[in-house]
């Protein structure tokens, strides 16, 4: 062995293509629990507490056996009146009907399975293993959170056996980025352990997507922990960031001491609750504001109002979208780009009157800066030229657009920008011809 190591070190010293691995730590043997051979059904029935050490049981973790072997589970029960930030988790029963807009199909709280993974690496490659699978579901008037953990890779079989039995009971998978991460990772694990790749095909309620639509420009980060702090009134204390989870797990894998996982359990638990609250927020939003019974802090900035409106419109709630738009316009402080965004929507919807108003407002606000002002004046030029056939007004807008684009000090004159300026020049020439003026006036 040592000769192989010496040789590798010698070659690597030269090749330097492989990063040196972390400090080796003496690998203390993990106390192998004595496996009970009784074949149990996969129902969540914990037993044999004795086989787990004190560290585990102090975290509320239990050992579970099934046909696939054994793994650990931590089960928590939350009553409906448990408050997590702004919302009580029980509000879900009222909010859930709103979520039917996602797939145009009715949703009941009992059909939702919440999922959040802690994995050993990044991406959905075949070597990335979820060492902790967080699940939550609604049972009667209680929310059950279950966190399955494997003590070593060989326990994965048992955990997957347990999960595959569970999944079939639900129709919707609720997640934050689960459509492209958590669920594909689970699928990979199932396939690698010999399950059919179509063992469960849930309808996704992935709240990353609406979050991105609405908060793209208003929140500095779209991480769940940031969204919940800014919009769900949740504050985490001493939270272990998710990015540290792999490291903590590998530490445990090396020395068998579960203590570092305590923080990971907590982090994942809060993620699960926040996911429930995010469902509540979006459900309320889709159900309509001002039901009175529940608190739903509404956005205060025009940007967020308009984006919320656009999202509601996309989800088939045009009426409620209009309320958002009106509120945004009343605020009188929207940035030019924001106004342009709504104007573009109005233009598409044929509401020219408000579109023109918005463009004019945008233009007035950005006399000295921004491509937003330029875009607004181009739109106005097109409107006056093609809709009203008022070439003089069109000409004055296009001249303004040109001035704004040429005088723009910060903008880089890349190829796209040069093409835009070229197009403006052409438009101006055409308008000059239409108004019968001399080209020399350019």
């Amino acid at each position, binding site marked *: 062995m040592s000769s192989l190591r010496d040789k590798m070190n010698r*070659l690597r010293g030269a*090749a330097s293509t492989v990063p040196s691995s972390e400090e080796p730590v003496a690998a203390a043997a993990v106390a192998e629990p004595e496996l009970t051979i009784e074949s149990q059904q996969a129902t969540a029935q914990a037993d044999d507490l004795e086989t787990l050490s004190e560290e585990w049981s102090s975290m509320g973790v239990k050992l579970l056996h099934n046909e696939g072997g054994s793994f650990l589970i931590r089960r928590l029960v939350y009553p409906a009146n448990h408050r997590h930030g702004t919302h009580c988790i029980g509000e879900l029963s009222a909010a859930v009907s709103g979520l039917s807009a996602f797939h145009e199909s009715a949703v009941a709280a009992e059909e939702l399975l919440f999922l959040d993974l802690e994995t050993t690496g990044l991406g959905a490659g075949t070597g990335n293993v979820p060492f902790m699978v967080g699940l939550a579901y609604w049972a009667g008037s209680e929310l059950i959170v279950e966190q399955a953990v494997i003590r070593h890779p060989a326990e994965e079989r048992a955990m997957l056996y347990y999960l595959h039995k569970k999944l079939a009971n639900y129709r919707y998978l609720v997640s934050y980025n689960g459509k492209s991460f958590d669920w594909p990772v689970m699928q990979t694990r199932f396939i690698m352990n010999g399950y059919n790749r179509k063992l469960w095909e849930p309808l996704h309620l992935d709240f990353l997507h609406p979050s991105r639509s609405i908060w793209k420009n208003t929140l500095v980060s779209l991480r769940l922990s940031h969204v919940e702090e800014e919009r769900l009134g949740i504050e985490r204390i001493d939270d272990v960031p998710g990015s540290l989870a792999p490291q903590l797990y590998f530490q445990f894998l090396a020395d068998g001491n579960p203590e570092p996982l305590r923080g990971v359990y907590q982090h994942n638990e809060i993620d699960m609750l926040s996911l429930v609250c995010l469902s509540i927020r979006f459900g309320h939003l889709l159900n309509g504001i001002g039901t009175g019974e529940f608190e739903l802090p509404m956005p205060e900035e025009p940007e967020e109002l308009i984006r919320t409106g656009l999202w509601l419109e996309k989800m088939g709630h045009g009426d409620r979208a209009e309320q958002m738009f009106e509120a945004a316009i009343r605020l009188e402080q929207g940035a030019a780009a924001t106004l342009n965004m709504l104007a573009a929507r109005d233009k598409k919807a044929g509401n020219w009157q408000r579109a023109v108003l918005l463009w004019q407002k945008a233009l007035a606000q950005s006399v000295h800066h921004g491509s937003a002002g330029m875009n607004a004046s181009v739109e106005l030029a097109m409107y006056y030229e093609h809709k009203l056939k008022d070439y003089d007004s069109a000409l004055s807008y296009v001249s303004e657009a040109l001035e704004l684009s040429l005088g723009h000090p910060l903008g880089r004159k890349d190829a796209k920008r040069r093409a835009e300026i070229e197009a403006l020049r052409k438009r101006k020439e055409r308008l000059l011809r239409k108004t019968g003026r001399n080209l020399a006036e350019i």
Partner: protein
Amino acid sequence: MFKKKTLPDLIEELRSNENIVNWHEMQPIEAKTTPFEDSVDPRIRAALQKRGISELYTHQGSAYRLASRGENIVAVTPTASGKTLCYNLPVLQAIAADETSRALYLFPTKALAQDQKSELNEIISEMGIDIKSYTYDGDTSPAIRQIVRKAGHIVITNPDMLHSAILPHHTKWVSLFENLKFIVVDELHTYRGVFGSHVANVIRRLKRICKFYGSNPTFICTSATIANPKELAEQLTGSPMRLIDDNGAPRGRKHFVFYNPPIVNVPLNIRKSATVEVNHLAKEFLRNKIQTIVFARSRVRVEIILSHIQELVKNEIGTKSIRGYRGGYLPKQRREIERGLRDGEILGVVSTNALELGVDIGQLQVCVMTGYPGSIASTWQQAGRAGRRHGEALILMVASSTPIDQYIVSNPEYFFDRNPEFARINPENLIILVDHIRCAAYELPFKNTEEFGPLEITEILEYLQEERVLHKSGDTFYWANQAFPASEISLRSASQENVVIVDQSNVADVRIIGEMDRFSAMTLLHDEAIYLHEGVQFQVEKLDWDHKKAYVREVDVEYYTDANLAVNLKVLEIDKSRNSGHGAVHQGDVAVTMIPTIFKKIKLTTFENIGSGPIHLPEQELHTRATWLELKDTDPELGAKILEQLLLGIANVIQHIVPVMVMCDRSDVHVTSQIKAAHTGLPTIFIYDHYPGGIGLADDVYKRFDEVKEAAANLIRKCSCKDGCPSCIGNEIEGIHAKQKSVQLLLSL
């Protein structure tokens, strides 16, 4: 007025050229064909008939028969012999017979894959069967990727993509791996050296995944002519192979002409530069509108010739119709050039061996090689670019002053009668092997006793467990690390860290124009180096070695740069030794340290040295395999100075001989001499692999040392100079019979 001449006119004119030293005419060959087998689907037959194929060439027939029976085959096919049908026919037939069948095509480059897709899709659309073939590479958009994974019958990709995108995500490719019937490896001969050693391991991983999903695909390989196609295919795929070499394709008349530039300095035996001669020869064809390809051996040489030819013909044809082609150009640019060549819009192209491969550029009439391409196999590949099935074609090889070029033009039988070279790989190179075991473990856990290829790897798995990369539970090793191992491993070069070339000529529009591996960058992208790209000169303003970026700016200067590399060598371990009369040959591990010292500025028109400057870069260290020759009792009367020069001369000859004998790029094997080797104090010549851990080249030299020795001695003896010239052992050493003494030294081993 200028009247255009035809190719036959020009060939006639050339016959009387006094610099032509050998004229080899290859007669047209008739086709040998065989009818379609009955099992071929009538729709496929009809589609092929529509393209004028009513019978198969004999090698295509054999390929179909054997591959359809599930036998792994390797078909040896020269350029333009219809090799694609060797694999397309069995694959299409399998899919026509069973819609669930899948095939994976591997091409060494993205360009070849793109090419193949368009050709394949033409046949498929004529067949009227719904067969979906897609390329899957870095350019494939995410939306298409989904479709390729789920529904692609034929997935066309390259080994790099297989390594870093497909295998580590095999669960997304279940329908491919469950139903994989064929794996096609085209251009097999390109998988040699470091690259081939990597790919052999990628294929081991691929076979492991196939086994997991229960498929057992058949391999179909095609190769240019090399000495050991069957051996290489078996080593690369780890499967027994049947060789198909009954080529039945026809060929037009070809003139293969050796051109030796005139001697300009008789005492030194210095000839006129091959580059200058090539410029003038190529110009003559181009101004007569004859489509011509010029091959040059280095990237720099390509750019120099390109700018010269563009200058020479700029008044007669536009410079846009003469283009350069080499690695380092961006893919879009290359596609554009290939298309231009096919539709005749581009008249001439100057290329490195990048165009040796099967990239479809249509049929050119003339091929001009600037110097011997370095191997027989590669010469025939390049020659195949001129003239396909019918019509006359001319191939001109213009010799340079290097020993091997001179040897070949003065011994044409060496070239025309000799077997082509062996292609070597070493999949067991420890660094490469361990890297791929990491990747394989990421893809699927390893059982304790599992083999990887033919190897027992328990020791390596345990090592990786100690390194905390793998975790052992029960009898299985699992991946247990945050990393994504495939991203750390490049199949193409010794080092993942390529230097990115950034053009900042236009401050408002800074662009990346190419990239280069770390070792080449030391001598080509140092501060103040002149870097040529598409005929345009750039000067390196700053090489940021820590961040692997070279900042360049466009310039217009009269020179190019050439850097010196100082090399030091230490023996670490001797594995094998062979003593002979006056010396010994050893094989073992060595440590090589390299540091670039100075660069010279060389005038473009006259190639004279017009200045120099220092290079400040950190030393690089390489641990590798070497073979070295040790001289024991040399004649004390020689004196240290002369002995040193003799060693240098012999090293020079060996450096030229070895790449030819073991078929590798010149840069894969290095030769260096020491008057007093550090470990023995004896005069020594080292031959070492330029890759960490070695790839079997120096080992091969040890095995075949007598052959190498004989060839080197022959080269020196046969050189026409009096007593040493740059074409053999270097400059003449006054009155010591250097040639005779060098041969004596060599043969004493």
